[in-house]
């Protein structure tokens, strides 16, 4: 057949010697490892500074008191902690139910076009700069209601959380095997009961994980708060009518002041914020590990 007509075989000698190829290989792999170290550099540097300087400035006063004139030692950022807690609570109320219900839609009810569009725009929402989201809420709630407020800030954070919660929860719901749904339907349960009583509880741990991570993310957001809550030096729990403080906002406002006392307190606040985010993320991971669906 054809092979017989192939003719004389052309000779070739390998030009690139094996040694050089292996050397290139080693260098390439070394560079990749270097990239990993390079990425860790800023992380390690940041954590080192935060822990060192933050721990030094951290005290009960700092955590519990409101700011005081620097000459008195600066006071603290207790009002910012309280503010952050309030804002996150509102954000959770806004973002979590909406997000989880959207996730339920995407995983259980979405058909064809609408489903694809919703999922696509949910992805798009994650890409919107948080400052922009904040400005929109500024227009909607601050201008309309006449003042900066915790409500505005909480809503802004909630809207930022929304797509994260939706996508994360949807992934968890999709992990629930169809056989469970079928079993419920086979027992005669209507679809909504199957969803609420079987599917969601099975995915519950994963959904909680997704939500905790979203809250951790929201707790670090500063830009939207600049334009919705403005920040404050006083304790307040009012949801409307007055600006409120928040931890990341406090850090921003203090870190740029040429006052060493304020800067020290900013490090302490950064330590508190990072610790909070890390603890939350760890918690989310631990909870997530306990989530198992077996077939």
């Amino acid at each position: 057949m054809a092979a017989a007509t192939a003719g004389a075989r052309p000779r070739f000698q390998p030009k690139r010697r094996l040694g050089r190829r292996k050397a290139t290989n080693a260098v390439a792999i070394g560079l990749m490892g270097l990239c990993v170290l390079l990425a860790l550099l800023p992380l390690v540097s940041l954590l080192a500074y935060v822990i060192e300087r933050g721990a030094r400035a951290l005290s009960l006063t700092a955590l519990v008191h409101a700011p005081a004139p620097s000459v008195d030692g600066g006071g603290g950022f207790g009002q910012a902690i309280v503010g952050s807690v309030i804002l996150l609570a509102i954000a959770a109320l806004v973002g979590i139910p909406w997000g989880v219900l959207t996730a339920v839609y995407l995983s259980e009810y979405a058909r064809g076009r609408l489903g694809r569009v919703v999922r696509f725009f949910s992805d798009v929402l994650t890409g919107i700069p948080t400052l922009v989201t904040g400005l929109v809420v500024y227009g909607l709630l601050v201008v309309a209601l006449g003042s900066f407020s915790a409500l505005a800030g909480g809503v802004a954070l909630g809207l930022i959380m929304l797509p994260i919660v939706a996508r994360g929860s949807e992934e968890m719901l999709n992990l629930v095997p169809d056989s469970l749904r079928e079993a419920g339907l086979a027992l005669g349960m209507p679809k909504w009961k199957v969803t609420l009583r079987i599917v969601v509880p099975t995915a519950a741990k994963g959904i909680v994980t997704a939500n905790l991570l979203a809250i951790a993310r929201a707790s670090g957001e500063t830009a939207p708060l600049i334009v919705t809550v403005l920040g404050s030096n006083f304790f307040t729990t009012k949801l409307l009518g007055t600006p409120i403080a928040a931890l990341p906002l406090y850090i921003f406002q203090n870190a740029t002041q040429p006052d060493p006392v304020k800067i020290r307190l900013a490090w302490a606040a950064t330590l508190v914020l990072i610790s909070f985010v890390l603890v939350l993320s760890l918690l989310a991971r631990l909870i997530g590990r306990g989530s198992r669906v077996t077939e």
Partner: protein
Amino acid sequence: MSKQVEIKDLSLYFGAHRAVADVTMTIGAHEVTAIIGPSGCGKSTLLRSLNRMHELVPGARHEGEVLLDGEDVYARDPVAVRRSVGMVFQRPNPFPTMSVFDNVVAGLRLNGVRDKKLLKEVAEHSLRQAGMWEELGGRLDTGGARLSGGQQQRLCIARAIAVQPEVLLMDEPCSALDPISTLKIEDLLRELKNEYTIVIVTHNMQQAARVSDSTAFFTIEKAGEPGRLIEYDDTEKIFTKPSNPTTERYISGRFG
């Protein structure tokens, strides 16, 4: 150019699990040797140990020797071994972002060959040997993935022989192809063995009977046991008068 492969007391492990045990056989030069046996008995694992692809799996190890013309492949650099021992896989895997030409000469380029004239010569020679020159000679720019299954597999064969290996390993090369492509490739093997030593794993006994000169039969005695070489002999003898009763039972379809 082709050499014989001597396998001595070869056992293959994945971690603690022994997949293939105590294989000793000599694969003759310029021959097509078929390895047959039921699924999951280690045929592919054995094949892959011949060009050291088996050790790409983390935790894989071997005991024993595989001698290519007297030299243990495990004593050489694996990259060098794989140039001498080529492989064609069950599912055709041409590089989809490369043209036919680029696919065929991919191995040559790895070795630093840049001379365009030489590359074209080798490409033509390999494609002719693989029986593809008439179909594709004028269309060397076609994307590798645009071909039919049978063409892709013959492209992979051309790619493998372009680097001028001594041994060509084929892991169920026709199982994903239609009967016509299968026949074309089987015809090819008969020609290729003039230049290469060919080892083909196949679960299709009739194919083994058609194309091979020698046949090795592998199987697992019991679940959890490693695969073992049961019988290795001339193809004609294996299929008409096998010495081992297990071989006989497999050939006559009583299991597998």
